[in-house]
């Protein structure tokens, strides 16, 4: 998929959070889904900075690097 293209996503949010997202989107003149996507990306960034998580992931990918590289690609 090209980077610029978008897809619809269903977000299950509690009403309070949905309202806050709506407010941020209105104030910034952006779509709710755009704000939501950015919020999710920020949380993913946070996880990537978690040292324990990153160390475990790095160890995994290094240990299995050769095997993962040889896995057949998607159809």
């Amino acid at each position, binding site marked *: *998929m090209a*980077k610029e293209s*978008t*897809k619809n*996503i*269903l*977000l*299950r949010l509690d009403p309070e959070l949905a309202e806050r997202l709506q407010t941020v989107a209105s104030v910034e003149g952006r779509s709710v889904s755009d704000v939501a*996507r*950015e919020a*999710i*990306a*920020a*949380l*993913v*960034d*946070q*996880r*990537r900075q978690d*040292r*324990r*998580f990153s160390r*475990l*992931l790095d*160890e*995994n*990918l290094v*240990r*299995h690097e050769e*095997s*993962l590289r*040889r*896995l*057949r*690609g*998607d*159809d």
Partner: protein
Amino acid sequence: MQFLDQYDVLAVAARVLRCSSEDAVRRTNLDAVDQVLADVRRTSGLVEAAAVLLSGLIRARAFEGANRVVTVAVVLQFVAANQADLRLEPVEEWDDLLDRLAADSATPVEVADFIRARLSPDRVTAEDLQEHLRVELLLEDEVANLRASHAPGGEELWRGEGMFEKFSDRARRVVVLAQVEARQLQHNFIGTEHLLLGLIEEGQGLAAKALSGDPATGWRPAGLGITAPAVRDLVVEIIGRGAHPTSGTVPFTPRAKSTLEHAYQEVRDLGDDVLDTEHLLLGLLSDGEGVAAQILMKLGADLDEVRRKVIEWRGHKQRVESAVTGFLADDAGTAWTTFGRRHHLLTELSAVLEENERLHEQVAELRALLRRHNIEPDA
């Protein structure tokens, strides 16, 4: 079991795809991931959970452009978070399974068998821990004082290699996790608060169940609902974060050492052979003025109640272990093919027996409830 959430999955995807988090979000079918993770949470054992995760993500084609490699990396991360590893060789067998999953022609049993045959527990040995903590160096200056101040039986505890020999794998992992917590908070010591976080983060031991189990669940014995983030927040509130990243060895505080001593005492008092997570927790509870105890009280726990709950869980665990031992004795002729298979079969058997025990307890409670309403359950 440690489950992954959507952000974990996206972080793995971003790392494998070498893209930004935002790109990973764009390239991932979030609904599909959400659904698969919900399905995984409904499973009961690591094998089944990994099989559901693999099948779900492959079938949903959750990751645009590199679905197979990201899915396998996510499954690897999941099993690693649960102290296990997966063998990926020969890769051709994985390709074959992934083909059949994509074509929807592999059954759940086949996938589970495939995972089971390749899953091996990642054990933490005393030697690993020794190296990890560099305990000999750490305690070199302490040994003389402690030897002088403890009973003869306690001396051996602080003798470098002897220190962790009686620790179960889970108890060893707790100490490793405590060190990780200390480093993450940039603390240059391991205190009782880090041991408490280690006990919760370990996730599978009796102490973790007693501390962090959901109190609202219908299961008995119920946990106290104490979570690692809540404890971490209080650690920061009480002690704060360190100003600089921690390097080199991270020593135990005197109170943490005392906790380990008390844990050993609990092992002796309870007539056990191995120091497990419940003994560490009982050790923490014995020092009511330690930071861990303060945090537990701030979170609404009554220390005596926690102790009672741990003892309650321990009785429950012993009954399960006794049943498993009985099963093994009856099945002595079985040729276990690998340690990994045996380990996971035992884990799953324990889970089934635990559930059975809990169901019995629920039935007993329901019968008592009926009787309180003057209804004879067997009538």
